[in-house]
């Protein structure tokens, strides 16, 4: 039984970077902007978080730095796509590629450096309770933050006026503009928020999950996060479920190996990616659902007055 609790804790920990990045991208997409640069923003967040954590010896400062770095990179994207009206798909790709290169470059002095990362909670007494102890009180602090983020975003989008405005901007920017809402500014904020969350996801990887820096350490998680948003039909609770599902599949390959399952490890390693494809196909197949749930103006540039 304890083994199951342990597995669940590991699964939640593995899914958390996806939760951060996907929730942030969800907000961005809700406002009508498609930002494919998640992988780049995560990496930039990771390297910034690690560098600051290593220099200041304070992992929380690192986390803050990671969020800022992700937001800063997304600002470049925002300027190019929202003010300069460039193609969002190409710009997002450029952001990813650039983020990968920039983070590799900036991170060079930090390879093999050791930091005191953020460790999972260990509250004496509570954390040692059988079964529930670890499950409720044994997570990394950032994992708890991800729960809070989910609650906050769910509440913001569906229970507050500003959240409604964001969704309106995504559904019909022309109408929102006609009513007088500053469409471009709202989108800027949404993009920046998404960037900060991606940066947070990267920071979690570098400062909490595996306190190390290595170039490309996100290993495709940014792209899986993008797929997750579609998989979740733009609903926050589904993002959470999907993230943990994929975290679980990723871990399953190692569990299977350690248990002696006789399948080539490469096949097991492929599973998360194959699973993403299958899920994507199944979810997208229902074009009606997609059309109903995807923000109507997703990916289209906004021209005031056109």
């Amino acid at each position, binding site marked *: 039984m304890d*083994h199951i609790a*342990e*597995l669940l804790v*590991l699964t939640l920990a*593995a899914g958390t970077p996806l939760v951060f990045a996907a929730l942030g991208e969800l907000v961005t997409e809700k406002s009508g902007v498609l930002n494919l640069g998640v992988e780049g923003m995560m990496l930039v967040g990771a390297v910034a978080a690690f560098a600051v954590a290593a220099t200041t010896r304070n992992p929380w400062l690192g986390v803050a730095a990671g969020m800022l770095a992700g937001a800063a990179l997304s600002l470049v994207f925002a300027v190019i796509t929202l003010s300069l009206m460039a193609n969002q798909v190409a710009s997002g790709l450029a952001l990813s590629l650039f983020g990968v290169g920039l983070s590799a470059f900036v991170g*060079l002095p930090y*390879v*093999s*450096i*050791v930091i005191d990362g953020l*460790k*999972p909670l260990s509250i004496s007494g509570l954390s040692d309770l059988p079964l529930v102890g670890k499950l409720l009180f044994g997570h990394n602090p950032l994992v708890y933050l991800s729960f809070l983020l989910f609650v906050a975003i769910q509440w913001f989008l569906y229970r507050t006026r500003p959240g409604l405005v964001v969704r309106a901007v995504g559904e019909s920017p022309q109408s929102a503009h006609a009513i007088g809402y500053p469409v471009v500014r709202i989108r800027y904020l949404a993009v920046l928020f998404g960037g900060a969350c991606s940066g947070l996801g990267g920071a979690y*990887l570098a400062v909490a*999950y*595996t*306190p*190390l820096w*290595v170039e490309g*350490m996100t*290993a495709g998680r940014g792209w899986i996060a993008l797929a997750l948003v579609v998989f979740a039909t733009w609903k926050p609770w589904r993002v959470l479920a999907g993230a943990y599902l994929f975290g679980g599949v*990723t*871990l399953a390959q*190692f*569990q299977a*190996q*350690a*248990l*002696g399952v*006789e399948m*080539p*490890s*490469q096949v097991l*390693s492929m599973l998360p990616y194959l699973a993403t494809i299958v899920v994507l196909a199944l979810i997208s197949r229902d074009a009606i659902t997609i059309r109903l749930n995807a923000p109507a103006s997703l990916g289209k540039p906004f021209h005031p007055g056109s």
Partner: protein
Amino acid sequence: MHHPQRRQALIAAAALAAAVVAASLPVSAQQAAPATASAPFKVGYVYVSPIGDAGWTFQHDTGRKEMEKALAGKVTTKYVESVPEGADAERVIRELAQSGNQIIFTTSFGYMNPTLKVAKAFPKTDFEHATGYKTDANVGVYNARFYEGRYLAGQVAGKMTKSNVAGYVAAFPIPEVVMGINAFARGMRSVNPKAEVKVVWVNSWYDPGRESEAANTLVSQGADVLTHHTDSTAAVQAAEAKKVYAIGYHSDMSKYGPHAHLTAVTHQWGAYYTKAVQDAMAGTWKPGTTWGGIKEGMIKMAPFNPVVPKETQDLVNKTAADIGAGKFHPFTGPVKDNEGKERLAAGKVISDADLSKMDYYVEGVQGKLPTSK
């Protein structure tokens, strides 16, 4: 309206302009080599990964620095890091040869064919390829008997484990890794016959994220001593976080896990490099097939964590001395694979050839080797 001529002319003009600008840029003189009575002997190194603070390349670079110090004033060295294996390696090796390096060490298996190709074009340059198996008139290969250290590591693990399960985070199922796992298992069971080894393949030499996940998985399945055959320190760090033990590889990794780190199997290349370069300088270098171990000083165990009991330390030191003196070989029969088949008769010592082709797990290792037929 198409004006293909004008379009092409524009492009051609732009390219030409760029070329003219580039060609006419002032170039400051390159750093001149220090002028000595006889020009220093140039030695080149090709590394597959960044040097970093620990790991495969770090140890090679440490060896390079030791050689430089031992032959101070007589050599200059040049290294190139993070050279990917594959088509690009040939160009880098060639550039090193072209720029006057007289002996070049290529420190990864994947450089084998590129090294051979360049060696053919530069017959007067000496080449040494690490972990390879093809030699030529001016190409030698060198390697270390990591498995000797692994056996000793296994002894430590066997004595320190309470759950009798060790976890091994491994990169790829190549012979070198497999013989390490097997030696580790044999060492472990020589002091603890109930001990078992669980292996997880991460399919990467350097991926701390996956290595961490693999390590955590092994711990969740009962392993309380971890070791690894990967290039990052993630396994040791995971052990520290989970409060289990770890044995490092390539380098002393105690700073990554002060409580967890029991010892490490370290690689020592300095003495070999010094000798090879000295031979090359004297003109007596010959292409060889070197496979050195504890005896030649190429494998050394890192200092023990004080938590390791003295009797264990003594046992390990004695076994090391025996291996070094040729009195003991980690693969002395009977050797059975983990399906019960006998692979080596009692009393026999495994040959180097059989060792290099090892494609089975020994008793005590769980699972089936991915590449065994």
